[in-house]
């Protein structure tokens, strides 16, 4: 098929098919876009999420925060992975965050962790923020109206 035919076909689409299609579509572009991806859990990222992500990026995996966590021995999911799983495995992606279960929610905000972080990650505050976000994502995931992929 030559280039000429391809361009002619695209010109037809531009002049006729595409505008016709636009007339038939329902909802705004944004509504259709978000509707496509809501069930996949691919939602927009708020500036709050971004700020938390940037703060969490300062983690250099040294593990010092673990020594200050009052709960670490008590909660199996923290005990097994170490507190800084909160920044690494769970916070990198909404899918992981939605699955964090009790590992983040158990945080008692004793803030024994924060003063120990060499790079100044606001550990306790992030854990609380991620826990809240994780709970919301998990609830959205389980919503019968929108099954996961």
């Amino acid at each position, binding site marked *: *098929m030559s*280039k000429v035919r*391809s*361009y002619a*076909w*695209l010109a037809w*689409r*531009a002049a006729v*098919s*595409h505008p016709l*299609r*636009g007339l038939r579509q329902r909802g*705004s*572009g*944004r509504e*259709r*876009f*978000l509707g*496509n*991806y809501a069930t*996949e859990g*691919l*939602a*927009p*990222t*708020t*500036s709050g999420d*971004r700020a938390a*992500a*940037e703060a*969490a*990026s*300062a*983690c*250099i*995996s*040294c593990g010092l925060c673990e020594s200050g966590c009052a709960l670490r021995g008590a909660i199996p*999911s923290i005990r*097994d*992975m*170490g507190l*800084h*799983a909160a920044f*690494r*495995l*769970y*916070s*990198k*992606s*909404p*899918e*992981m965050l939605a*699955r*964090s*279960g009790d*590992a983040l929610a158990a945080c008692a905000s004793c803030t024994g962790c924060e003063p120990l972080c*060499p*790079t100044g990650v606001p550990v306790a505050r992030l854990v609380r923020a991620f826990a809240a976000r994780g709970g919301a994502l998990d609830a959205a995931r389980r919503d019968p109206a929108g099954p996961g*992929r």
Partner: protein
Amino acid sequence: MAGAANQGTFDVVVLGGGVNGAGVARDCAMRGLSVLLLEKQDLASGASGASSGMIHGGIRYMTSDRRVTELASRDAGYIRRIAPHLTFRIPFLIPFATHREEATLLDRLTWYATEVYVGTYDLFQPLKGGKPSARLTADELYAVEPSLRPGLHGAVTLDEWGIDGQRLCLLNALSAAAHGAEVRTWTEATGLVREAGRVVGVRWRDALTGEHGEARTGVVVNATGGWSPRWGKSNGIAVPMRPGKGVHLSLDRRHGNYGIICTAVDGRQMFLMPHEMESIIGTTDDDYYDDPDDLDATAEEVEYLVEGVASLVPSVRQSRITRAWWGVRTTIYEYGVEEDDLSRDHRILEHGAEGTAGLLSFVGGKLASYRAQSEEVTDRAVALLGKAVLPCRTHEEPLPGGDEVPVPRELAERHGVPEAIAARLVYRHGSLARDVLRLVDDDPRMKLVVCRDEGIIAAEVAWAARHEKVRRLQDLRRRCRLAVGGCGGLDCARPAAQIAARELGWSADQLRAELADLLEVGWRERRPVLDGWQLAEEELLRAVHRGLGGL
């Protein structure tokens, strides 16, 4: 086993364990041919391991031949069918930008044309289970992606599939092996054996054990990718190709859920996209004449990529870049054409005229079309052999683990592992995640979390060492992304090395040598982008591994 192979006879010998080589090996084996695959390093060590990680539907071909787009989209659909666990959606935004104060009529026409073009691609999306595009106004665009710079005029959205190219390549090789192929990694083909203008055999040497042998065969498939010209030269064969170096950067975490198409300073199209647990910025395309075994990302390439993305997403300059990685594309040779304008089509070269009848070379192509490309080569090989074989079924038969996608929550509850870990196992192993977790039932120590960046437990490392053609510690980078994240192996390198050593029978010295090799490979990737927190990470990594570990 080794004895039998040293002087074995095969219908086909495939050189190169990238996705094309593995795909051909699989197709040949599934059709009933005996196959030997030789890969001089690890599977997916070349371009297949450094791709952008997408299987797209060939949107750019609608201007030249929309049948190519149709085929590409259909084949992307096949890949989804045979490895459903391995694909994930990436919605892309194509913002409408102008660097002038006001949008000109030409700008608006260009944007409309883009909208029409992407809207036309919607016709092909059903072939690969893709979602239709949408036109966003400026306000809608900022609501959906606030990190974009001000002054944009809206966008059109585009749906593509992301994939872990290294796992895809591995699964093809494992499938080939399951159908009787012999797959040898870290084994180099040291020479072709020719008689009367035909290729009759391949000599090989195992780089790790020194073992060598010769395989008799009637057909040799050269799938050595970026190494083709060099390989060809050392065997007195011309493989015309324009090797194209491509560099990508990884960010520490997903910047968001949507990819963003940007324009680089020289007008080339680039992207910033979320991919599994990180973000990827890509890519460059430059003619590369040097040794494909000896690549590095240059400061110019890194800055070029960051600058390109920063033009639309200024905050990327504050993001933590964890590493740079690279590969060499096997682009079809054309003289007098800019790299970007070269065809991404593929070609099969036959070398009969050069006195090497029976040798087929794979040139060009892209990750998304590997299966169709492999089918063509296999058809050609079958014709050369003149054998009656089973029909091609690579588009139907699931790859290992691709027959069913388990529910992570159920696996998590049954085996007592965190759900997030189960989800990562399901992503990488599909239905075989159950088998990996059975190791945990037998030995609860295997629940130990080895890597917190990627959610790797000891069981997965052991599984890979036992079943996934792991011979060196660095192979685990490609199997389960060990030490590939920002931590550079700070937590995971030594425990993983200890597990691999136990499985593969390494001595303490060998363990240390493998650990040193893994760290060296990681250093090469982190070196060009050391900055900010990643530099602090590097200080810690060196203190522990070099200072304390003496590696």
